[in-house]
């Protein structure tokens, strides 16, 4: 119970406002590290403080932070609550920052458990905790299976084996220094091997679809001629007026990014400035930016106006999207379909209507395209993955610090402490801890002794 724990404590993550609760002896210290505003370690207890959550000097979100000192709190520990405003993406970014700065993700029921163990609530109040803890393991098991596909889990296991091998070799060098025939792991050899590990972790981060979705969301770039209904599609999807919708061609000049949840997954919509020839400087800048967005998107969604025949410009765009992972949305609005579907027969398209909210086909298509339907426990999947991300990132940071220390000529024995941490981190991701591993590995692979 000496860890500081955190979790998103508001039920729905779709709401614009979310509360992240942090509890434990380092609660104030950790939040203060990522907070720009008053010094939270010095403010009075039970106060609300305005400021920003920052990461590497950049503002992540504008927040209100409630600071409550022990013992008059729910858990009887220091509690800090962060009210975020930026919606789903930013809330999770804040959570990730907390995890990176020393918090641990709370287990289900853990705040209540602490409240009970610290004598804040009695047993009747805490009766449900047992069930929660009991259900945790089952959930975790499911999660581990859902959220890390076998392939990724195997990759992490493989990495762990590799690290274990290096560690065992170092241990053998240390415990059996007189054995000159065994390979001695030097700083150079260690660096080479760490580079391999680093590359592999970066690959895992890159390849892991779920991981990527969770970190950045699924990025969909909307393109189409001006006035085909891009902005209204966007608004329907996010169900709020963020982009300005007009029928004057070229009003969507900046890149607008909005997010919504699709089957529990974050989808970022990037409404590109209408792509057309223009002399207007501001509009041109917007267009250049759009092209860049298209390059980086996971999916390019081309919107065609179903009430009109295909123009030359539409046909140019159709040619263009073929280069990308794309989908065509034919917006038929309330009018008859005039578009030449015959021309589109070799394209992947769906038909819908933004005015009548006929978007199911589009949503289902996106879900199946990215297999978003394969994972059930949405919320939990998301959270554990955030933690996994933090663990992988922390592993990368640890490796970097080993590199730094190798440069400083820190003896290999010290570096094993960091290597051990890497191993432990990866073990947490796939839910395995092994104590005897190292000793077993030493005697399995090395021939030593009298």
């Amino acid at each position: 119970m000496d860890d500081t724990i955190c979790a998103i404590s508001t039920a729905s993550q779709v709401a614009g406002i979310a509360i992240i609760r942090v509890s434990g002896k380092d609660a104030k210290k950790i939040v203060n590290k990522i907070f720009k505003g008053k010094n939270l370690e010095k403010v009075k207890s039970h106060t609300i403080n305005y400021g920003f959550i920052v990461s590497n000097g950049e503002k992540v979100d504008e927040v209100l932070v409630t600071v409550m000192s022990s013992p008059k709190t729910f858990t009887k520990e220091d509690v800090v609550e962060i009210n975020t405003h930026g919606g789903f993406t930013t809330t999770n970014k804040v959570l990730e920052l907390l995890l990176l700065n020393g918090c641990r993700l709370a287990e289900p029921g853990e705040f209540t458990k602490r409240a009970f163990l610290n004598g804040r609530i009695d047993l009747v109040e805490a009766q449900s905790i047992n069930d929660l803890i009991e259900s945790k393991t089952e959930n975790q098991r499911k999660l581990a299976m859902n959220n890390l596909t076998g392939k990724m889990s195997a990759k992490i296991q493989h990495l762990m084996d590799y690290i274990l091998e290096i560690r065992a070799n170092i241990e053998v060098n240390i415990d059996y220094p007189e054995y000159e025939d065994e390979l001695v792991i030097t700083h150079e050899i260690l660096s080479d091997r760490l580079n391999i590990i680093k590359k592999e972790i970066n690959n895992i981060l890159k390849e892991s679809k779920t991981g990527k979705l969770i970190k950045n969301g699924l990025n969909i770039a909307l393109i189409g001629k001006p006035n085909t209904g891009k902005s209204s599609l966007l608004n329907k999807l996010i169900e709020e007026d963020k982009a300005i919708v007009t029928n004057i061609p070229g009003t969507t000049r900046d890149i607008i990014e909005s997010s919504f949840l699709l089957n529990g997954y974050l989808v970022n919509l990037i409404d590109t400035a209408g792509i057309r020839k223009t002399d207007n400087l501001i509009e041109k800048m917007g267009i250049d930016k759009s092209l860049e967005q298209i390059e980086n998107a996971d999916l390019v969604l081309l919107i065609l106006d179903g009430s009109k025949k295909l123009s030359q410009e539409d046909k140019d765009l159709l040619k263009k999207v073929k280069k990308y992972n794309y989908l065509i949305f034919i917006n038929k609005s309330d009018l008859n379909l005039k578009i030449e579907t015959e021309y589109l027969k070799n394209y992947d398209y769906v038909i819908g209507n933004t005015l009548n909210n006929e978007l199911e086909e589009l949503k289902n298509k996106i879900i199946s395209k990215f297999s978003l339907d394969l994972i059930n426990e949405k919320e939990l999947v998301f959270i554990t993955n955030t933690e996994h991300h933090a663990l992988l990132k922390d592993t990368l940071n640890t490796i970097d610090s080993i590199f730094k220390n190798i440069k400083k000529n820190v003896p290999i024995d010290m570096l094993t402490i960091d290597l051990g941490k890497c191993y432990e981190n990866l073990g947490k991701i796939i839910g395995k801890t092994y104590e005897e591993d190292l000793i077993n590995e030493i005697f399995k692979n090395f021939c030593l002794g009298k």
Partner: protein
Amino acid sequence: MQEVDVIVVGGGHAGCEASYATSKMGFKTLLITLNKNNIADMPCNPSIGGTAKGIVVREIDALGGIMGKVADASLFQIKMLNNAKGPAVRSLRAQADKVIYPKNMLKKLSENKNLKIIENSVKNLLVKNNKIEGIILENDEIIKSKIVILTTGTYLNSEILIGDTKKSEGPHGEKNEKFLSKNLEKLGFKIQRLKTGTPPRIKNDSINFDVLKKENGDDLYYTFSFDDEPQYKKEEQRCCYLLYTNQKTHKIVLDNLDKSSMYGGYVTGVGPRYCPSIEDKLVRFKNKERHQLFLEPESNYYDEWYLQGFSTSMPTNIQEQMVHSLEGLEKAVITKYAYAIEYDAIDPLQLKNSLETKLIENLYTAGQINGTSGYEEAASQGLIAGINAALKLQNKEPLILKRNEAYIGVLIDDLVTKGTKEPYRLLTSRAEFRLLLRHDNADIRLRKYGYEVGLINEKQYKNLQDKLETLKKVINYMDERYLNQEELLKLGIKNNNSYNLSKVLKRPEIRMEDIKDLIPLKISEDLKNQIEVLIKYEGYIKKEEKNVEKLINLENKKIPKNIDYRKITNLATEAVEKLEKIRPTTIAQASRISGVNPSDISMLLIYLKKEYKNE
């Protein structure tokens, strides 16, 4: 009928420390050994220390034990291992004279008026209401005592195996203890059969040393003990020799595999993985072209060499062929053949952290009977058992060293929490906080305990206080002393920033040696090393200390002795079984048991809170 306070059964390394501690702490102690000449015998390698083990010897000395002092007086070669691999894993290893070491030990023990040594064999324990009352000798004579410490080594029901022959005897053909383990079993102890082995000894003048590679001791002076001055001349150290097996050796071994006790099916005990016989090595590591061997001198008083790495249970004629296949040993004369030895040990899960048995009050066990291997492992347990037995007689709490305090703590905690299926050897890799468990700071870690129990005297303690004082002064000075440009340039640092000495020492290329003249305080070699470690690796040390903090919190959460694990709802069945068997005393210990999961620990914590809210 005789009556004493403490009876120690067995005069090996564990028994010596145990009887020294209880007698020094004021209790009338009787050490019963089968052969007085074999006190502190070294039946295997002629060396004390080694990785992790060398640090254990320092810890024994810090606590007030005697192994370090006896080793200092008996060694003829010494080395600091792992000098380049990092400060946490540095460790002393000495070649000790097999004749001199036991002599010095006997002398040390004899200085003690409270200690009496007799030759006899113990066949049973005198137990009433699960409490020890004394022992029964071979001739049915009874000796009463308040405490019994069993340190029987490999002598319990031991059998010596060479090829297909099997003899019921102890090392060197000594008499063994035939009845005790049967009687321990009757008292409820789970007996397990373990195996170890020793390589052949070679006659000095039959070895062609010219073709072998010399391995010298360090050209420096060291002592195991914090109180000793070096008692050897570094230029007079004896050397060891390195040699290798070859294809011819391998062929002989593999062709005759079924003739060895091990592969012929004559061995029932479990041997240690870290101490494989040469036949094991060849079977398990088929692709290795050669295996390293060492020749180590056994004594200045007889001309035998110990052939380290060549332990075997082959018949003697095959051993001859094997030895003669080695370069330099073509004409070697084997003075003692290698053998495997099987012996009985108890399951250490039946012990408390104090090394008192859970079954019988005031009965303690230490050393190989607990499933360990090694002189140092045995001695350290003997010392702890002795200290705790004496503390028990004084109605005081036992001395239990934590995993972050000593290798001895790691050793005992591993034994009583995880048990062992093979002879247990300490390795630095077994210690999760090895950066804190260093050779250089054993006195700072442990001397206070030795002082509290009365094994460390005022003067020794004062020396430690002085050392700590100097340490503090030097570190303060180094923080406050800033260097000018000229001084920095002299050290090769081109920088316009101001640097204090601590910051300078943090640079990888700077050693304490380079800046010692800038510090106007007298600093011993020992302290120099220590300061260097503390400053250079401050970051890592802090990291470890933070982890220790977490452990301590869990260690402080005690589990009541009478807890009924079956009453805890939602505890996994496996966890209940393991917890009932091991009966951990703290939450930390419980969490180290394999098969007890974090969710079980949560349930346990909640239960404790509920049931014992007033404690």
